[in-house]
């Protein structure tokens, strides 16, 4: 049986699943119910000088029948007094000593103010601190949140102030709203951070009401940009986590688009030691952690991983520069006619959207009457129009397999070209005429 316990920057969590700082971690009642449901830790809703929030605050994108594919918010940090938050943290830690409570902090950029907050958080019994340098809306207008996290020097400076007094681990939460997140991560590491967490939400305008021309969420006929998250952002998170994993030595807590155990496993595969979840818990409640724990355990057992460390970061070496990829590796698409339902989505996708390498059922390319040729009929006796891959034209792009609505109907098969491995970098080294011109003064 896999052991999900993890040690992260010196603190131990019963499992890698934490609730990210946000609406689900606003109160002691929520934190305790979350621990009862199985969450390993909670990162408390960011504590700072209490703010006043707007109504409404959230917006979402649905995709057909799937609700909240993407989610955004313009909610600020905790609207409750600082001492109330710390008192509740104290109470929660007393009752749940084995679960982690990480205090998320955001205050004005003054050394003494940060020192004071760190001491109070530690006195409340917090297991670690997370510095919120990522909030992209509202707080950034006041010189906090992403206003700090977008500037490497500020990030390093404030991290170092915190480290001057902190006795517990310090996690710096990174914003993705920068050109190169690795520079911010490196700055946090230089400032003495014990860990980083990413990604915070992505700056966004979730949509516009086309009747009133008010963007969402509507606040009295106006709106503002807010933080984007939910299932839609996972690919961005995976990319940024993998690049940070190659840049810094300190541990990473992965955030962004985690709704299921396999999302979490992917975050771990690209270098995260713990993962943080918010939108999915806002959608379905704390109970979702049960299958996260169960599913991850089953997966680890099936693959012989005894601990998270056994597979953490395993995908990182496989994330390479494009210029290092083998240009002589070749695959082509293969349609399995017995599974084909005749929707011809692969045909039109390839024809209009890719490389014109699929012949429709009635094309001369496919034999004048492939309907008769393959003779396939559906249960009602109607012909099934099976297209055909034109192998010599196929570039192996995957598009047909991606659009095909039937599992395993289109697979990609490896073609032995006999050519040795050859990356773009190798190719340009051997034949400099292929190399792009180097920028120079003249």
């Amino acid at each position, binding site marked *: 049986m896999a052991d999900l316990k993890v040690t992260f920057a010196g603190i131990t969590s019963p499992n890698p699943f934490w609730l990210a700082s946000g609406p689900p971690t606003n109160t002691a009642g929520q934190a305790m119910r979350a621990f009862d449901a199985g969450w390993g830790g909670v990162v408390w809703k960011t504590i700072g000088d209490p703010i006043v929030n707007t109504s409404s605050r959230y917006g979402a994108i649905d995709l057909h029948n799937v609700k909240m594919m993407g989610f955004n918010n313009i909610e600020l940090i905790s609207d409750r007094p600082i001492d109330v938050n710390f008192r509740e943290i104290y109470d929660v830690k007393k009752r749940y000593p084995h679960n982690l409570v990480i205090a998320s902090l955001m205050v004005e950029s003054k050394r003494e103010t940060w020192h004071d907050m760190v001491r109070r958080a530690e006195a409340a019994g917090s297991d670690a601190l997370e510095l919120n340098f990522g909030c992209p809306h509202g707080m950034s207008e006041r010189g906090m949140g992403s206003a700090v996290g977008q500037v490497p020097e500020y990030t390093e400076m404030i991290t170092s102030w915190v480290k001057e007094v902190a006795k517990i681990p310090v996690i710096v939460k990174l914003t993705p709203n920068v050109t190169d997140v690795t520079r911010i991560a490196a700055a946090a590491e230089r400032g003495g951070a014990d860990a980083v967490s990413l990604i915070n939400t992505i700056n966004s305008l979730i949509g516009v009401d086309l009747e009133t021309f008010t963007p969402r969420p509507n606040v009295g006929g106006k709106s503002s940009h807010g933080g984007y998250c939910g299932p839609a952002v996972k690919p961005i998170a995976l990319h940024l986590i993998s690049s940070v994993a190659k840049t810094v030595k300190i541990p990473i807590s992965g955030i962004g688009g985690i709704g299921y155990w396999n999302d979490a496993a992917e975050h771990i595969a690209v270098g995260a030691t713990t993962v943080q979840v918010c939108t999915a818990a806002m959608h379905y409640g704390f109970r979702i952690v049960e299958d996260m724990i169960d599913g991850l355990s089953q997966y680890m057992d099936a693959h012989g991983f005894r601990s998270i460390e056994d597979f953490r970061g395993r995908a990182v070496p496989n994330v390479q520069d494009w210029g290092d990829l083998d240009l002589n590796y070749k695959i082509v698409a293969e349609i399995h006619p017995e599974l084909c339902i005749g929707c011809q989505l692969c045909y039109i996708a390839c024809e209009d959207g890719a490389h014109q390498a699929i012949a*429709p059922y009635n094309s001369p390319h496919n034999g004048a009457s492939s309907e008769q040729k393959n003779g396939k009929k559906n249960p009602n006796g*109607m012909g*099934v129009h099976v297209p055909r891959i034109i192998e010599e034209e196929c570039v192996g792009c995957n598009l047909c397999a991606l659009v095909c*609505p039937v599992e395993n109907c289109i697979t990609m098969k490896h073609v032995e070209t006999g050519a040795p491995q050859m990356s773009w970098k190798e190719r340009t080294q051997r034949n400099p005429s292929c190399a792009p011109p180097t920028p120079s003064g003249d």
Partner: protein
Amino acid sequence: MPLRETAPKLPAEQYEKNFAEIEAALSESQAVVESARCLYCFDAPCTLACPTHIDVPAFIQKISTGNLRGSARVILSANILGHSCGRVCPTEVLCEGACVMVEKGEEPIEIGRLQRHAVDYVLDRGIQLFQPGSPNGKRVACIGAGPASLACAAELAKWGYDVTIFDRRENPGGLNTYGIAAYKTRASDAIREVTLVKQLGVKFLQNTEVGRDVTFFGLESQFDAIFIGVGLGETWDLTLPGEELHGVLGAIEFIEKTKVQPLHEVEIGRRIACIGAGNTAIDVVTAARRLGAEAVYLIYRRGEPEMPAFAYEYQLAKQDAVSFLWQTQPVRVLGTNGVVTGLECVRTELGAPDAKGRRTPAPIAGTEFTLHVDMVVRAVGQQPVTDSLRGVRGVELQKNGTVKIDERHQTGNPKYFAGGDCTNGGREVVDAVAEGMAAARGVDAWLGAARKK
């Protein structure tokens, strides 16, 4: 003259319940969910399977994006009777039968109900989607106000023709109004649908039978072309002894009563025999049960496998607890004082397959038996309307009485075109629409008028 015994009257509201639409309309959220299931196939098999080739993925995609007006435009530009077809088409052997979901092992997309959803949207709001074309000075008469004529007239009107429909009935719509089971489509819905054709400026002369109230010759002098879309006539006789008795009637005549009379006033026997096993026979037996008949027999001289009705229709009759007497043939209608009291039948055995591959039934002597019934309904197909057409110079009829046409739907007299049941011998509404539209193209090609869409 009353029937020997009539079915006990049902509570008034029960009739409405029994004839309520068997397929409820989709709610807006149901329609969005169902439309999102559609894969948006390219060169889609559903579109190929539709005789009018409605671009099904396009109209369904428009429902999923909330563009219901655009969705209805896609449907109605291919088939002006998309409303009726959405309700009465045998979708399981057409679009839905061809849906790729069937091969995927899932339920096909509910194309018919989605189509209704989009068309209802514009009908409910009185939205006019199409405009008449600029007048091209040509006049066309359409005889009959059924699906073929309506489709032909609408196309021609869009291209600028001045079209007048002559129809012998009180209301337009043809079989949609008078001849399809009420639980599939109400007469009022079929009549409302005709507004789509009226919006195009097509004139309707109801209660006007060509050949009686106006002459073919008269039409020829006033119109540049004439489309014959008269459909079929009365139900064939069985040529059985006793067929003249009160209580024997044709299927179309029986269905019509359920469409034009208040349901509680429709005269219905306590026990009924229906002869024939096509889709119209199913309409008869289900209507009879829903009107309160206690015993309803469907009598067919071949067996269940040879039954011409669609599987879906057969299922409806089974659900209505109809008794099926397979390999049974009527011999004579029995009666007292001129009123039906029973039907004498005989069992059959099936011999060698005929030219169409259907096995020929032969009566088995000594197996005669009598069904005590109060009504006998003939559902053995409709006769062609030959009498009035015989007098039209040059218009030839086939051996079976249908009008002979070429590929442009033109008859032996170049001024006359024809389509629908009167040429195909009796098919679906959607086939009549497709043929009416094809005939409109034929008229347009022949008159050489520049198309102004």
